[in-house]
């Protein structure tokens, strides 16, 4: 049980002038300092007593983190301080990676999305993170500034547990980037909450499909599931079924069942584990079918 008297604890707000200095500070205060961007998760978690950092390090606006750039040769990069409303409004995103905008659109409310960021959503590593699935199916990579310099962390190996990632003290995620999406692809993110808009996900399903002659079925699909496992889940068995068997209604149903079987959800006030599993099946079927309708010859 968390503290009975929630309220923001006392902490020091730290703003440094460079990424190097910020990384240094975070590394020196391992365990008692945390970087923050929009603060939409950090301050809620602190208010509710889950996090008790002494230092909150503001990393907004450091070294070009505030840009969205698209390069037709290499792909899209979204800086860590770009808020979700900017992602939703970005012409490049809408033209080349619309599923990012679709996923961002399901997060909370407009007001919150002026603070919330995609990179923050990824680093917070909630299994319910709505934009994480889209980032996963787009083969996203996180750019991380650490004490030893800059490195790339593929999202496929980024998540370790609920709220836990491979990031180490001193690490600051500065951007998420995506390669050019596959030729002829389509993607969808379907979120189910308890209401039309605004609730946390009971279940979220991201699906991306594209023609691929190297696959026996002629297509490949990438799937990612929210809120049904300790980490954002990629149901590889379901992906394999869609690559191997000719795509029919029955194959999609089989893949959807495989996705369901891959889940290990919990019961909570939003929905039971059983409901979640069946919703994964239904929504995977729906998402894959819709993507399939758009990509098939």
């Amino acid at each position, binding site marked *: 049980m968390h503290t009975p008297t929630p309220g923001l604890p*006392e902490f020091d707000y730290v703003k440094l002038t460079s990424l190097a200095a910020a990384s240094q500070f975070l590394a020196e205060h391992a365990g008692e300092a945390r970087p923050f961007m929009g603060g939409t998760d950090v301050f809620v978690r602190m208010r509710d007593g889950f996090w008790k950092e002494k230092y909150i390090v503001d990393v907004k606006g450091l070294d070009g983190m505030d840009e969205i750039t698209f390069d037709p040769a290499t792909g899209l990069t979204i800086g860590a301080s770009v808020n979700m409303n900017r992602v939703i409004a970005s012409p490049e995103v809408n033209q080349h990676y619309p599923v990012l905008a679709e996923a961002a659109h399901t997060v909370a409310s407009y007001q919150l999305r002026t603070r919330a960021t995609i990179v923050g959503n990824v680093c917070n590593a909630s299994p319910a993170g709505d934009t994480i699935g889209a980032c996963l199916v787009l083969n996203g990579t996180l750019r991380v500034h650490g004490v030893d310099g800059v490195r790339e962390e593929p999202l496929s190996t980024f998540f370790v547990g609920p709220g836990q990632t491979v990031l180490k003290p001193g690490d600051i995620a500065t951007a998420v980037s995506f390669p050019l999406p596959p030729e002829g692809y389509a993607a969808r993110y379907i979120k*189910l909450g*308890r*209401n*039309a*808009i605004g609730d946390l996900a009971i279940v979220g399903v991201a699906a991306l499909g594209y023609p691929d002659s190297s696959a026996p079925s002629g297509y490949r699909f990438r799937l990612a599931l929210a809120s049904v496992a300790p980490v954002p889940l990629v149901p590889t068995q379901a992906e394999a079924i869609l690559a191997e068997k000719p795509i029919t209604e029955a194959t999609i149903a089989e893949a959807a069942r495989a996705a369901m079987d891959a889940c290990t959800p919990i019961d909570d006030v*939003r929905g*039971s584990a059983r409901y979640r599993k069946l919703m994964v099946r239904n929504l995977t079927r729906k998402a894959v079918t819709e993507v399939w309708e758009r990509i098939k010859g």
Partner: protein
Amino acid sequence: MKGKWIGQPIKRNEDPRLLTGQALYVDDVDMPGMLHAAFLRSDYAHARIRSIDVSAARARPGVVAVYTAEDMADFWRPGPLIVPPPRNVEGIVFHARTQIPMVKDKARHIGDPIAVVIAESRYIAEDALEDIVVDYEPLEPVVDMERALEPDAPLVHDDLDSNLAAHVVQEKGNYEAARAKADVVIKRRILVDRGAAAALENRGVVAHWEPKSQQLTVWDTTQAPIPIRNGIAAMLGLSEHQVRVIAPFIGGGFGPKIMMSQPEEVLVPWAAMKLNRPIKWIEDRRENFIGTTQERAQIHDVEMALTRDGRVLGVRDVFLHDTGAYDPYGLTVPLNTQSHGLGAYDIPNYYTEFKVVFTNKMIVTPVRGAGRPQGIFVIERMMDLAAKELGMDRAEIRKRNLIPPDAFPYRQEIIDQAFIELVYDSGNYLPVLEKAMAMIGYDRFIEEEQPRLRAEGRHVGLGLVTFVETTGVGPYEGARVSVESSGKVSVVTGVGTQGQGHFTSFAQIVADQLGVDVRDVRVVTGDTAQFHWGTGTFASRGAVVAGNAVKAAAAGVRAKILKLASKVLETPEEELELVDGQVRVADIPERSISLGELAVMANPLRGAVEPGTKPGLEATDYFGPQYGATASGAVAMIVEVDPETMMVEIKRFVIAHDCGTVLNPMIVEGQIHGGVSMGIGNSFYERLVYDDNGQLLNASLMDYLLPRSTDMPRRIEIAHLETPSPLNPIGSKGVGEAGAIPVPSAFAQAVEDALADYGVEILETPLSPNRLFELLSARG
């Protein structure tokens, strides 16, 4: 009684201040030297307190005082029994256990206050809460209502033999005899679960003791400033004239703010006097979930006896009502359920029995609807099941049983929350139902649209229910109306205001009486220094009871105006008219005098006030209804259910209602919109989830789901029908709860209809996508 102003959809006088952020709320009160309070609340639903160590908290810099029950000495006493049980119900059992200011022996629910810290800032006060060490001895909690009545259940109140708080049996006619004659008897168990009132503004209190003038001023988010004033004065041993309670603008009441002598309301004024410093406490949202009263949980075992042609011969309803850890509000809620258990129908035999149960959960007191939605949910669900059983159309079975227009006043022969026999004063129910049916296109939907959509594989359903709402209960309210020398009019009344539009509807009543512009009438509510007789704003009674008091006072002023003007204008009263702020001779409009000039003459600087008259164009009057007026209505709605996810979308929503004379249709519609959104919450979104330990699992707005604009129907189509109440001169009935009462029953019926091919029966509210899915799974 439409007038130049009454009945018109005019814009509200108060809105410019509200919309531009100029209105005063309790949290806007700021005083030099003001301290801040924070409460330590129990982590356990049921625990004995072995010891409380506050020494570290007291030592924290910036902390001025820390109090526990022990520090209160003789001031520690359980709060008042706000509503005692009715004395005229035979065999009634009632054990009063009223709310306590702070825990002395054991905590009885999550959030029970244990200590209060007073500090230089709220930050310091909250930090100091963490310094307090409480040695708890956790006890087994009792959370489930049925479990609470088992012989070996842990006791919430050790001095009682069981967790039974009350037992009431009432009967109209003879149900058993009716049952013996019935062709069909239907029996079901129906559940209603808990929800929060979830006002936008949480509770708050600021208290300021002025030692030199010996005056205590309390700003409080209360719906009942006058009773609060009386309670605080009594508790602190002050004269009622030494205490001024101000209920300024309040961001929603919805019932819990009628609760009096809540711990914070008692402790903040007490501490302010003790410390000689103003103190503020503003509830945060989590405190609101664990420290503000809630409602609705009941379990009904209900039986309905009918003839083959759909006439209901009788209803037998035996239910449990969860009152939480204490029962300070008496039996208002279950009595309301009982008195709404026959809905709008002429049912000659009714056996109704309830047991009120103590549990280790937050206290239950009225929340918008206050027991009425449960009663309507039960009777309306049973009507639907009966229609199905008999193979009858659900509109038809309702029509066959509605109380006919010539049966009013209609006696229900049971005692209701006003402690007198429930009598529906007036109404005309069939046209209301038919209006709702016409608006939704009932026949066309059933015969054409639904079959067509079903053939397309879509799951659409219709809900159609009727409801009644007892409103405008006594005892009384009062008002004082004065014409000032500017010619403008001031109105003061004792009720508090939480968004009902009193500043406009009361002004409309006065404007029609005095022939002034509604914008020239300034209304003051909720300040005991301005008016100190009255009860409060609750039970949909403001417009009815205070409204008629305003009218009576305005009529008194009108009489004074005419008397004086008759002298001044040397014209008989009957030839005078009040128009545009003037009194003028009807036939010779240029012979006139303004109300302002008359007001000056009525308060002479020279010369005397004649014997038998009083200075000023002012009158005070009161109104107490003989009994409450009963409003009615019908709701029709169409929903679509996504069979893959069990998400429900409301496609159309129609409400036809009759609240007697409509003072301002725009305000009435606003009340209905708000009520409907609350009803939608109670249908599909809002459920407080307590676990087996009595912990509230969704004590935040992230987890407790309020409906949003995107969950509301695009339009709420409203029709006003007006059957004026004979019980008051304006002819009004209340409408504050009308929207909230019928929605869950209409929603459940619509969803059940949409899922007809799954054969699911809905016997509970609120639902959720997950719960619907479970119900379907249980059907296989």
